[in-house]
Each structure stands twice: as structure tokens, then as C-alpha cells.
């Protein structure tokens, strides 16, 4: 006999307990601390901060711990917290040429003022599993900061722009930037709004889209003009004070890609720029973002818009992993009513179909 579904609340509470238990795992092992995650999983922390749109390594680490390492869940946690925070104002625009660099490479020039700094990168690790890490006690050398003085390393893009070989970015009319977390996306979407969307966008989604532009879906020929990673001061200018104050340092990764552009009726041939910026050390994200940013400029540059990565609405509406994850997974919610409606329809359509078959005398 059918019993109406009851006891849902008890089931939810029991489920919450199981979440906690599963997250903790084997209690014979020490619990991982938030500080350990912050220090030893810094790249996960970086991704959660970037896509969570909140620079706070401790809270990002806490979110990773609470989400049992599910980074999209951690991003969701961080965003849901962020949304409750008051907004005091907008910081002054960051000037990345002032960065205290940890790493900086250019694939366009053999040598550049300030030099190439390899820094910390997985690029040349050869990806052999390091079994010594299984032994907890293995000694690791402490990192010595190899910071390059900021004034010694101007951005590569600025050299090219000085010669008019690279398009100048002239979007800034002094008006405050849009805030996607407070106003809905509208079209046509400004570059500032697009970049903001991409900065919050899912790394995997952007990676796939960026990759597609390299394989002919968008026809771009990018060069890694410069990738830099390091620390930068953030300044805020309170109106009542009249001068900027330093409110702290953040770790960021910036990528500028140069793309060939043959010119149009109004614009001479020059290189154009794809721009990527992410919190923390996140080169893959910054590069993928730069590829997609450039692809999204197709319409403005008079290029054909044919590939998915060039389609502004398509990209901006599907880049957000918290939105995507929620909507994909909402299919788990009950849909009894809609399904009942469809069931009734399909039965009716089948009856009508069989009726037609019988009338025409042809066996099915």
C-alpha cells in the first residue's frame, strides 16, 4: 500500500550527519587543518578564490575543507558567504607593472628588461610520481623569495603599444566598472563586463573554449606576450580622505596574449590583445581566459563570428560553474508532476499512433 512521502526532515538531518562523517574520513588519522590546506594546497585555494570572487586564502581553505575537496562546492560556499558582505567601495585600478614578481616569462622576446624569471612552475617537473612524498618526513628546502624589483620589469605589452604595434586598450572612460554580482548581464556586454565574467568563469569551461580557438574554431594565432605571477598592493581611495591608502597585498597571475590582426577599414594592421587575470598562482586559468577574451572581440574587430568561443551570449551565459552545477543537478529534484503530464501525453500519442497504424492496415 502506498504511503504518502513523510519524514523528509529527518532524512535531511541524517544526511547532514553523514556529510560530516564522510568528510572527516578515518578518525585514526589527524584531521587536516585549514592552515595546512592554505599552505600546502595553494593552487586549489587560488582557484576557489578566483572563481569564488573573494580574495581570502583562509576562508577559501576553510571552504575546501568543508567541501571535502570538491572545488566547485567550495567556490559555491565562498560565494554564498561573499554575497552577505557589505560593499565599501571600489579599489583603485591595479597597475601590474608594479608587481613584486615571483615568475615572469615571455614567449615573444628572447630577453626583456627585467629578464625572464622561471620561478615556481610545474612545466619542467617531468611528471614522475615522487614516491618520497609518501614518507611524510622527506625534507623540502624552504623557498627563498626570488623577487624581482618592480621598476625593473615593465610589461612587454607596453613596449609594443608604444610603437603602435599593439592595440591600445581605451575602454576606461573613468566610470565605475560594472559589478556582475549586483547587476544582471545585459547585451551588448562591455569588455569590462566580459572580463569580469571570465575571471569568475569555470577554469575547465574556459580551458576547453580557449583550446577550441587554437584548433580552428575561431582562427586565432596567439603568442604568449607575457605571463607574470607575483604580489601587488591594493589601494583604496576614500573620498573623504582624498588620498589612496594601502589596504593589503594580493597574489595574482596575469597573462597577455598577442594575436595577429590584419586590420580593417578603420584600424591599421597590428597585434591585438587577449587578457587574463586571476587571483593566486593560476596560469592555466589566466591563459585560457586570455584566449577567450580575444575570441570574444571578434565582432568588434569586424571578424566573422562563427565559433562557439566568439559567441558572446553563449560564452557569458555558460561560464559560471555555480550556475551550471546548480541547474544540471537540479534534475535530481522531483519532477513527478511534469513527468506525469508527459506520461499522459506519450500514452495518448501512442494510442493515436496505433489507431492510425490499424486504420491503414499496415502491421507495425
Amino acid at each position: 500500500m502506498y504511503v504518502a512521502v513523510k519524514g523528509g526532515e529527518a532524512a535531511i538531518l541524517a544526511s547532514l550527519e553523514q556529510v560530516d562523517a564522510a568528510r572527516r574520513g578515518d578518525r585514526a588519522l589527524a584531521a587536516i587543518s585549514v592552515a595546512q590546506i592554505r599552505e600546502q594546497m595553494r593552487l586549489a585555494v587560488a582557484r576557489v578564490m578566483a572563481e569564488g570572487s573573494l580574495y581570502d586564502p583562509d576562508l577559501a581553505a576553510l571552504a575546501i575543507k568543508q567541501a571535502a575537496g570538491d572545488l566547485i562546492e567550495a567556490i559555491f560556499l565562498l560565494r554564498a558567504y561573499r554575497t552577505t558582505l557589505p560593499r565599501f567601495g571600489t579599489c583603485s585600478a591595479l597597475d601590474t607593472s608594479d608587481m613584486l614578481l615571483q615568475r615572469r616569462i615571455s614567449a615573444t622576446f628572447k630577453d626583456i628588461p627585467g629578464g625572464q624569471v622561471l620561478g615556481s612552475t610545474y612545466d619542467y617537473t617531468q611528471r614522475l610520481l615522487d614516491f618520497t612524498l609518501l614518507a611524510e618526513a622527506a625534507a623540502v628546502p624552504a623557498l627563498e623569495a626570488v623577487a624581482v624589483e618592480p621598476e625593473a620589469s615593465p610589461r612587454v605589452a607596453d613596449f609594443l603599444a608604444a610603437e603602435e604595434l599593439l592595440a591600445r586598450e581605451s575602454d576606461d572612460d573613468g566610470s565605475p566598472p560594472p559589478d556582475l554580482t549586483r547587476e544582471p548581464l545585459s547585451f551588448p556586454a562591455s569588455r569590462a563586463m566580459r572580463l569580469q565574467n571570465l575571471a569568475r568563469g569555470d577554469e575547465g569551461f574556459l580551458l576547453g573554449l580557449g583550446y577550441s580557438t587554437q584548433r580552428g574554431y575561431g582562427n586565432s594565432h596567439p603568442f604568449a606576450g607575457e605571463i607574470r605571477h607575483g604580489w601587488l598592493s591594493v589601494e583604496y581611495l576614500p573620498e573623504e580622505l582624498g588620498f589612496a591608502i594601502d589596504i593589503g597585498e594580493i597574489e595574482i597571475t596575469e597573462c597577455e596574449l598577442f594575436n595577429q590582426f590584419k586590420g580593417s577599414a578603420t584600424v591599421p594592421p597590428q597585434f591585438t590583445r587577449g587578457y587574463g587575470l586571476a587571483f593566486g598562482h593560476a596560469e592555466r586559468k589566466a591563459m585560457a581566459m586570455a584566449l577567450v577574451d580575444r575570441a570574444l572581440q571578434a565582432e568588434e574587430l569586424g571578424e566573422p563570428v562563427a565559433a562557439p568561443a566568439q559567441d558572446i551570449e553563449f560564452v557569458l551565459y555558460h561560464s559560471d560553474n555555480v550556475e551550471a552545477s546548480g541547474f544540471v543537478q537540479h534534475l535530481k529534484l522531483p519532477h513527478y508532476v511534469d513527468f506525469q503530464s508527459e506520461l499522459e501525453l506519450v500514452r495518448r500519442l501512442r494510442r493515436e499512433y496505433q489507431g492510425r497504424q490499424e486504420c491503414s492496415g499496415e502491421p507495425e
Partner: protein
Amino acid sequence: MSGPAAGYNFGYLDEQTKRMIRRAILKAVAIPGYQVPFGSREMPLPYGWGTGGIQVTASIIGEDDVLKVIDQGSDDTTNAINIRRFFQRVTGVTTTTLTGEATIIQTRHRIPETPLHEGQILVYQVPIPEPLRWLEARESETRRMHALAEYGVMRVKLYEDIARFGHIATTYDYPVVVNNRYLMRPSPIPKFDNPKMHRNPALQLFGAGREKRIYAVPPYTDVVSLDFEDHPFEVQRWDATCSLCGSADSFLDEVIVDDAGGRMFVCSDSEYCQRQREAIS
């Protein structure tokens, strides 16, 4: 009744956000059926799970309100329980399962069987607010179509159904025209519920969080399901009656009772069913 959760504002949302949503709701009421874009916030529940309805409810709810939350017509489905639990935590308001006693009813996929009355507010959770979205994916294009009231494509789509099947093959989220102007998506309610929207004395608010739209149907407003003269709109009917309360005029869920094809039908609106049964006994 417990007080709202410490550390959070009444209703979870901050006051500036509430004002922004309230302004959007007022414009939605002023332009029935038009989707007002709003700065949807990131809620602590997932997108697609009712964040739009939750933001609307959080912006209108006050201490004296009595809240009912249903999903698939039932107060007892896990998502309904979870949203009710959320509002209990962040507002401390009284909740109820009784349709007649609620001042605010948040719903996913159903309109209660019990007729609503003046002063009540029905808040729908909406996954995709744009009725033309399956026909035209682009927001810039659908916005233009609404501006010009250019809804021919929807009529063509329904007519193609008739040409192919002999009748319209849309059973839920069935498009309506509000106040003789805007084409509107009623959210995925079964078309069985569409007639209840027409000139309903209650205020109907629709929230789509992920898609960042709010729209409304004021009380006593015309809501007409699209149809054709030779193929008038009609709702689902069942040969069966509810196995629990015997109701012959409520929306029925089909339940599989054994592995030999056994079926039974029960009311989707659990509170209505309960009251029918009480009335019998």
C-alpha cells in the same frame, strides 16, 4: 517559534539587496508578464533549486507572515522541507501546510487546489523564464520579440504540433498571454493549473535566480493559455480518481505499486488530499 539565525539579517538578504529586489517586484507588478532583470544574488542554496523564488520570498516576508512551501504540490518533499527550514532559520516566521492560512506560498511546479484569496501572495520558482527560449536561444533577440509583441513563432510551434499530432503536445510550462500583451512562461506547472492563474484574487510573483528575472501577475489579471479556435486549450483528465481521498477533480500523481504493472493515482496536492480525507471521515 524561534528567532532568526544569529549573524544574519532577517530574511538572510541585506537591506540594500531587498530594496533592489523590491523595486524589481514593483515594476513587475506594473508591467504584468514582463520579465524584469534584477541583480540576483548568490544564495546559499544551489541555482536551479529555487533561488529566484527564495529571493522574492526573502524580500517580501515579514514577521507576521505565515509561510507555506510546496514542491510538486506537496509540503513534504525534501526540497520543500529544506526551503521551509531555511526560512525558519533566517526569519523565525510561522509556517503552515494549510493553503488557506498561509499569507505567502512558495511553490515549485504546482498551484494549490484550494482556491487562493485576496491578500495572499503565491511565489513561483522559475527555472527558465523566457517562453521563447527553446525557439530562439538569444536573449538579445527574444527581448526584441517581446518589445514588438512578435509572438508568431510560438503560434507556429503550437500549430506544427497540431499538424503532426492532431493536437498541441505541450503538457506543462504551457505558454500564456498576460493582460493581452506579454507572452509568459508560467514555470513548469502542468497545464492543468493554467486556468487557476486567470483572474486569480491572489498576487502571483515569479522569481528566476539563475536567469536573474522577476515577473508578476497582479490579482484579477487576464491570463490566457495560447490556443486556436479549432483547437481550444484543454487540461489533462484522468480516468481514475484519487485512491486516498476519492477526489475526481485534482491533479493526480501516478504511483507504481508493484512490479507487475500495478498503478494507483493520488492527489499531487498533499494538503488538499489530507483535508478531503478528513472531510470524509
